[in-house]
């Protein structure tokens, strides 16, 4: 089956910085794909190369089978990008911006109905004739999504779309994106909110220092984390004056009477933790264990 995005041995330097070091990965058609990595990992550079905003030094990238350099017109027709920054042209209204964007792709003449549908879907209908400057941050974010979709691309890249967005808007945005995915769009998501990637993405790539360091299904990645560590949260009757020496290295955080421990499943047991606390006279009121989440996996893999 043809891949939605195929990236092969991509290198990119910025001066002396080697931003991408032979990146290769494939996003299948119809996937909800997560691209994770700490700041400076190379996520934005990779997205910019896919979108044609940055030139790679070597390697190749294709979108729906079209090379992004030699067949950039076709590859860009298939790609919609929601940029991370809230950028907009202050001269125009929401509808004008969408009409112009559709025109760039040669689809301006018959775009009115689709633009109306996008405005409706993103709850922007009553702001259609408002100037971009008059919109709130959340509304501007929704316009960016509409701009990315106005030429009906097959593949949509969302670069941290919920950064700085309130919870209510975040939920409605995800509902919209899930609907796009159900309609057959391939979605590539980068986010700092790992719980978002965990709840939405089918496969996740983790990149760091310009290299792909993990690429697997969400379940397989989570299974990696579960195998090594677990978090244990203990609530005591009174805050401890002194933490036992043998437990100090396992502490994740202390909040008064509540202490979180990270235990290595190979070497630590919950019994030894309880014994250690009782040895210093602590009275345990509550104890909870948590499975590893994507954040744990991410931290473990990236060493953050």
């Amino acid at each position, binding site marked *: 089956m043809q891949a939605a995005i195929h990236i092969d041995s991509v290198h990119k330097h910025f001066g002396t910085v080697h931003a991408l070091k032979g990146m290769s990965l494939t996003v299948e058609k119809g996937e909800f794909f997560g691209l994770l990595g700490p700041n400076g990992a190379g996520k934005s550079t990779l997205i910019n190369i896919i979108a044609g905003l*940055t030139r790679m030094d070597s390697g190749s990238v294709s979108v729906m089978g079209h090379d992004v350099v030699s067949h950039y017109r076709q590859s860009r027709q298939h790609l919609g990008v929601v940029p991370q920054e809230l950028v907009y042209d202050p001269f125009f209204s929401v509808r004008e911006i969408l009409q112009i964007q559709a*025109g760039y792709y040669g689809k301006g*003449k018959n775009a009115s109905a689709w633009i109306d549908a996008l405005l409706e879907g993103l709850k922007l209908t009553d702001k259609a004739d408002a100037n971009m400057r008059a919109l709130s941050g959340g509304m501007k974010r929704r316009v960016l999504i509409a701009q990315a979709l106005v030429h009906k691309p097959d593949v949509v890249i969302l670069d941290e779309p919920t950064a700085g967005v309130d919870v209510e808007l975040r939920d409605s945005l995800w509902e919209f994106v899930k609907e796009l995915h159900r309609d057959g769009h391939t979605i590539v998501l980068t986010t700092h909110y790992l719980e978002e990637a965990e709840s939405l993405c089918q496969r996740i790539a983790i990149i760091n220092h310009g290299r792909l360091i993990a690429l697997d299904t969400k379940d397989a990645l989570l299974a990696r984390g579960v195998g090594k560590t677990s978090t244990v949260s203990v609530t005591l009757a009174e805050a401890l004056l002194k933490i036992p020496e043998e437990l100090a290295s396992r502490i994740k955080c202390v909040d008064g009477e509540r202490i979180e421990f990270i235990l290595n499943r190979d070497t630590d047991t919950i019994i030894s933790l309880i014994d250690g606390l009782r040895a210093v006279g602590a009275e345990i009121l509550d104890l909870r264990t948590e499975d590893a989440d994507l954040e744990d996996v991410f931290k473990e893999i990236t060493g953050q």
Partner: protein
Amino acid sequence: MNWEGMYTLFYKELKRFGKVALQTVMAPVVTALLYLLVFSHVMEEHVKVYENVSYTAFLIPGLMMMSIIQNAFANSSSSLIQSKVTGNIIFVLLAPLSYLEFYLAFLFASVVRGLVVGTGIFIVAMLFVSLPLHSALWLIMFALVSSAVLGTLGIIAGIWAEKFDHMAGFQNFIIMPLSFLSGVFYSIYSLPDFWQSVSRFNPFFYMIDGFRYGFFGVSDVAPLFSLLVVLSFWLLLAVFTLIILKKGYKLRD
């Protein structure tokens, strides 16, 4: 060719300056008229450049051309630097537009703005003094090619500049001196020999001299020669611009 894409970018650039017409059209017209009022009042009785042509009449084509080229430059340069600084240039760069389409869209919009401002000055100036019209063809050719030159220079400046300060430098240290020292207010024959020779290296001089020929049928240099100089200059700049656009210089890092 992505004709609709190119036309859309051109149309967007027209709408952009149309939405602030007070600043982009009316203001340059008023500025040119102020120059006309002041200089014609002070110099009318003292300076005679061509036989049977009053100084005020001599001044109008120069002011028209100066405004045409300054506004053609301002259109492409200000649009690009604003788009770069605010980041919305990304929407053009993401689109399936070639570097040639990008260039032509910005170029045509600059030419239109230059011509709109030039026409505005002409219409208002005609209220004060009647101008002869020797050849509309020469007028139109020089207006088109000259605004194309400055529209292209504006694209170069817009791509090169990283902040408004850079743009102000380009405008104030290159465009303004070249346009003011190009014979808008005088004939180069009124200058000492040395400065006459220097003026001949200023391509803006040929734009204004040729444009003036369209009105009066007299010029400091043969109009065909001036047109060839301006066309060659445009060709040179256009090739340079297309090369940097193709390379993605400062746009696609």
